Protein backbone atom coordinates (compact mmCIF):
# COMPACT_ATOMS: atom_id res chain seq x y z
CA UNK A 1 0.00 0.00 0.00
CA UNK A 2 1.33 3.43 -0.89
CA UNK A 3 1.68 6.31 1.48
CA UNK A 4 -0.33 9.44 0.88
CA UNK A 5 2.02 12.41 1.15
CA UNK A 6 1.31 16.08 0.88
CA UNK A 7 3.26 19.22 1.73
CA UNK A 8 2.44 22.84 2.39
CA UNK A 9 4.05 25.88 3.97
CA UNK A 10 2.95 27.16 7.36
CA UNK A 11 4.60 29.93 9.38
CA UNK A 12 7.94 29.43 7.66
CA UNK A 13 7.89 25.65 8.03
CA UNK A 14 7.40 23.01 5.38
CA UNK A 15 4.68 20.71 6.69
CA UNK A 16 4.77 17.17 5.34
CA UNK A 17 1.54 15.27 5.95
CA UNK A 18 1.86 11.50 5.95
CA UNK A 19 -1.02 9.06 5.77
CA UNK A 20 -0.86 5.25 5.79
CA UNK A 21 1.60 2.63 7.03
CA UNK A 22 5.33 3.37 7.02
CA UNK A 23 7.39 0.20 6.74
CA UNK A 24 10.20 -1.37 4.74
CA UNK A 25 8.12 -1.13 1.57
CA UNK A 26 6.82 2.42 1.88
CA UNK A 27 9.60 4.18 3.80
CA UNK A 28 11.42 5.07 0.58
CA UNK A 29 8.44 7.27 -0.36
CA UNK A 30 8.81 9.18 2.91
CA UNK A 31 12.58 9.41 2.38
CA UNK A 32 12.11 10.82 -1.12
CA UNK A 33 9.59 13.40 0.11
CA UNK A 34 11.96 14.64 2.84
CA UNK A 35 14.90 14.69 0.42
CA UNK A 36 12.83 16.68 -2.05
CA UNK A 37 12.04 19.30 0.59
CA UNK A 38 15.67 19.67 1.65
CA UNK A 39 16.75 19.92 -1.99
CA UNK A 40 14.27 22.78 -2.32
CA UNK A 41 16.08 24.44 0.63
CA UNK A 42 13.15 23.71 2.93
CA UNK A 43 15.18 22.87 6.01
CA UNK A 44 12.57 23.63 8.66
CA UNK A 45 10.33 20.63 8.31
CA UNK A 46 7.38 19.38 10.32
CA UNK A 47 6.41 15.78 9.63
CA UNK A 48 2.77 15.26 10.58
CA UNK A 49 2.31 11.62 11.58
CA UNK A 50 -1.18 11.96 13.02
CA UNK A 51 -2.64 9.88 10.19
CA UNK A 52 0.05 7.19 10.24
CA UNK A 53 -1.51 3.96 11.49
CA UNK A 54 1.76 2.00 11.66
CA UNK A 55 5.45 2.78 11.62
CA UNK A 56 8.38 0.43 12.03
CA UNK A 57 12.09 1.14 12.35
CA UNK A 58 12.44 1.58 8.59
CA UNK A 59 10.37 4.72 8.94
CA UNK A 60 12.26 5.80 12.04
CA UNK A 61 15.54 5.42 10.17
CA UNK A 62 14.26 7.70 7.41
CA UNK A 63 13.16 10.31 9.95
CA UNK A 64 16.55 10.24 11.74
CA UNK A 65 18.35 10.64 8.40
CA UNK A 66 16.04 13.54 7.57
CA UNK A 67 16.75 15.16 10.93
CA UNK A 68 20.51 14.89 10.35
CA UNK A 69 20.17 16.33 6.87
CA UNK A 70 18.03 19.25 8.05
CA UNK A 71 20.34 20.07 10.94
CA UNK A 72 23.44 19.91 8.70
CA UNK A 73 21.78 22.69 6.73
CA UNK A 74 21.03 24.74 9.81
CA UNK A 75 17.42 23.61 9.94
CA UNK A 76 15.24 21.35 12.04
CA UNK A 77 12.87 18.45 11.60
CA UNK A 78 10.02 18.18 14.09
CA UNK A 79 7.45 15.43 14.49
CA UNK A 80 3.74 15.69 15.21
CA UNK A 81 1.84 12.68 16.50
CA UNK A 82 -0.84 11.77 19.02
CA UNK A 83 -1.21 8.84 21.37
CA UNK A 84 -0.97 5.40 19.81
CA UNK A 85 1.38 3.05 18.05
CA UNK A 86 3.54 5.79 16.49
CA UNK A 87 4.05 7.43 19.86
CA UNK A 88 5.00 4.06 21.33
CA UNK A 89 7.63 3.13 18.76
CA UNK A 90 9.18 6.59 18.95
CA UNK A 91 9.23 6.41 22.74
CA UNK A 92 10.53 2.86 23.00
CA UNK A 93 13.50 3.70 20.79
CA UNK A 94 14.24 6.89 22.74
CA UNK A 95 13.83 9.05 19.66
CA UNK A 96 11.40 11.32 21.51
CA UNK A 97 14.53 12.72 23.17
CA UNK A 98 16.18 13.41 19.81
CA UNK A 99 13.34 14.98 17.85
CA UNK A 100 11.29 18.02 18.75
CA UNK A 101 7.84 16.46 19.19
CA UNK A 102 4.44 18.12 19.23
CA UNK A 103 0.77 17.21 19.44
CA UNK A 104 -0.34 19.49 16.62
CA UNK A 105 1.09 21.15 13.53
CA UNK A 106 0.10 24.53 14.91
CA UNK A 107 2.09 23.87 18.05
CA UNK A 108 5.10 22.76 15.98
CA UNK A 109 5.09 25.80 13.73
CA UNK A 110 4.37 28.25 16.50
CA UNK A 111 1.01 29.11 15.04
CA UNK A 112 -1.10 27.63 17.81
Amino acid at each position, binding site marked *: *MDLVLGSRSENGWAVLEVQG*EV*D*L*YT*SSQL*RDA*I*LRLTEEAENRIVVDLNNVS*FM*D*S*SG*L*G*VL*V*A*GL*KRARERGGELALVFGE*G*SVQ*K*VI*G*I*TGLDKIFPTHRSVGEATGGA
Partner: protein
Amino acid sequence: MAQRATDRIDAGSTVSLAIPADPASVGTVRYFAATIARHAGLPEELINDLRLAVSEACAEAIDAGVTGSIRVALSLDPEGIDVEVTSDGFIRQEGEGHGREGLVPINRQQLISALFPDAETDQGRGMRVVRFTVPHASSSGA
Protein backbone atom coordinates in the same frame (compact mmCIF):
# COMPACT_ATOMS: atom_id res chain seq x y z
CA MET B 1 -13.96 -14.36 35.93
CA ALA B 2 -11.99 -12.74 33.15
CA GLN B 3 -11.93 -14.63 29.90
CA ARG B 4 -8.46 -15.72 28.88
CA ALA B 5 -7.36 -15.00 25.37
CA THR B 6 -7.07 -18.61 24.35
CA ASP B 7 -10.58 -19.48 25.57
CA ARG B 8 -11.87 -18.09 22.29
CA ILE B 9 -9.72 -20.21 20.03
CA ASP B 10 -8.40 -23.72 20.41
CA ALA B 11 -5.39 -23.79 22.69
CA GLY B 12 -2.62 -25.75 21.04
CA SER B 13 -3.55 -24.58 17.56
CA THR B 14 -0.84 -23.25 15.29
CA VAL B 15 -1.62 -21.08 12.31
CA SER B 16 1.04 -19.99 9.88
CA LEU B 17 1.61 -17.91 6.79
CA ALA B 18 4.51 -18.07 4.35
CA ILE B 19 5.41 -15.06 2.23
CA PRO B 20 8.13 -14.35 -0.31
CA ALA B 21 11.01 -12.28 1.05
CA ASP B 22 9.58 -9.15 -0.51
CA PRO B 23 8.99 -5.81 1.26
CA ALA B 24 5.56 -5.57 -0.35
CA SER B 25 4.46 -8.71 1.52
CA VAL B 26 5.27 -7.53 5.04
CA GLY B 27 1.97 -5.69 5.39
CA THR B 28 0.17 -8.98 4.76
CA VAL B 29 2.03 -10.55 7.68
CA ARG B 30 0.97 -7.72 9.96
CA TYR B 31 -2.65 -8.12 8.89
CA PHE B 32 -2.48 -11.89 9.41
CA ALA B 33 -0.92 -11.63 12.87
CA ALA B 34 -3.34 -8.94 13.99
CA THR B 35 -6.34 -10.93 12.78
CA ILE B 36 -5.29 -14.04 14.71
CA ALA B 37 -4.46 -12.02 17.83
CA ARG B 38 -7.77 -10.17 17.68
CA HIS B 39 -9.63 -13.45 17.27
CA ALA B 40 -7.75 -14.74 20.30
CA GLY B 41 -9.01 -11.79 22.29
CA LEU B 42 -5.77 -9.90 22.88
CA PRO B 43 -6.07 -6.22 23.75
CA GLU B 44 -5.34 -3.71 21.00
CA GLU B 45 -2.16 -2.48 22.68
CA LEU B 46 -0.66 -5.98 22.51
CA ILE B 47 -1.93 -6.47 18.97
CA ASN B 48 -0.09 -3.32 17.95
CA ASP B 49 3.08 -4.60 19.63
CA LEU B 50 2.70 -7.93 17.81
CA ARG B 51 2.24 -6.16 14.46
CA LEU B 52 5.40 -4.17 15.06
CA ALA B 53 7.46 -7.16 16.20
CA VAL B 54 6.53 -9.41 13.27
CA SER B 55 7.07 -6.54 10.87
CA GLU B 56 10.54 -5.93 12.29
CA ALA B 57 11.42 -9.63 12.16
CA CYS B 58 10.36 -9.89 8.52
CA ALA B 59 12.08 -6.64 7.57
CA GLU B 60 15.28 -7.75 9.23
CA ALA B 61 15.27 -10.96 7.21
CA ILE B 62 14.65 -9.07 3.97
CA ASP B 63 17.31 -6.48 4.84
CA ALA B 64 19.71 -9.34 5.43
CA GLY B 65 19.22 -10.61 1.92
CA VAL B 66 17.05 -13.66 2.56
CA THR B 67 16.58 -15.44 -0.72
CA GLY B 68 13.82 -17.88 0.19
CA SER B 69 10.58 -17.47 2.04
CA ILE B 70 9.56 -16.15 5.43
CA ARG B 71 7.15 -18.18 7.54
CA VAL B 72 5.28 -16.65 10.43
CA ALA B 73 3.68 -19.13 12.84
CA LEU B 74 1.43 -18.26 15.77
CA SER B 75 0.82 -20.99 18.33
CA LEU B 76 -1.92 -20.46 20.85
CA ASP B 77 -1.32 -21.73 24.34
CA PRO B 78 -2.64 -20.87 27.81
CA GLU B 79 0.08 -18.28 28.32
CA GLY B 80 -0.72 -16.39 25.15
CA ILE B 81 0.65 -16.64 21.62
CA ASP B 82 4.06 -18.08 20.80
CA VAL B 83 5.39 -16.45 17.66
CA GLU B 84 8.06 -17.82 15.33
CA VAL B 85 9.37 -15.98 12.30
CA THR B 86 11.53 -18.32 10.24
CA SER B 87 13.49 -17.19 7.22
CA ASP B 88 15.21 -19.48 4.72
CA GLY B 89 18.25 -18.63 2.71
CA PHE B 90 19.70 -16.31 5.33
CA ILE B 91 22.99 -15.17 3.86
CA ARG B 92 24.35 -12.32 5.94
CA GLN B 93 26.18 -12.85 9.21
CA GLU B 94 25.19 -11.42 12.58
CA GLY B 95 26.05 -7.75 12.94
CA GLU B 96 26.43 -7.01 9.27
CA GLY B 97 24.50 -3.99 8.21
CA HIS B 98 22.48 -3.43 5.11
CA GLY B 99 22.97 0.15 4.06
CA ARG B 100 20.13 2.05 2.44
CA GLU B 101 20.74 5.53 1.23
CA GLY B 102 18.91 8.13 3.27
CA LEU B 103 18.20 5.79 6.15
CA VAL B 104 19.91 5.56 9.54
CA PRO B 105 19.64 1.92 10.67
CA ILE B 106 17.74 1.19 13.88
CA ASN B 107 18.46 -2.12 15.60
CA ARG B 108 15.40 -4.22 14.86
CA GLN B 109 16.30 -7.01 17.30
CA GLN B 110 16.57 -4.54 20.18
CA LEU B 111 13.18 -3.15 19.29
CA ILE B 112 11.59 -6.62 19.28
CA SER B 113 13.22 -7.37 22.66
CA ALA B 114 11.95 -4.08 24.07
CA LEU B 115 8.43 -5.14 23.12
CA PHE B 116 8.76 -8.79 24.16
CA PRO B 117 11.64 -9.39 26.59
CA ASP B 118 11.72 -13.16 26.01
CA ALA B 119 12.59 -12.66 22.33
CA GLU B 120 15.44 -14.81 21.07
CA THR B 121 17.07 -15.48 17.72
CA ASP B 122 18.60 -18.71 16.47
CA GLN B 123 20.62 -18.75 13.31
CA GLY B 124 22.41 -21.46 11.39
CA ARG B 125 22.40 -23.66 8.29
CA GLY B 126 20.99 -20.83 6.21
CA MET B 127 18.00 -20.36 8.50
CA ARG B 128 17.13 -17.78 11.07
CA VAL B 129 14.33 -18.05 13.62
CA VAL B 130 13.03 -15.21 15.78
CA ARG B 131 10.84 -16.34 18.69
CA PHE B 132 8.85 -14.45 21.25
CA THR B 133 5.69 -14.81 23.31
CA VAL B 134 2.79 -12.41 23.35
CA PRO B 135 1.21 -12.78 26.79
CA HIS B 136 -2.56 -12.87 27.03
CA ALA B 137 -2.48 -9.86 29.36
CA SER B 138 -0.73 -6.55 28.83
CA SER B 139 2.61 -7.16 30.48
CA SER B 140 5.08 -6.18 27.79
CA GLY B 141 7.93 -4.09 29.06
CA ALA B 142 7.25 -0.93 27.10
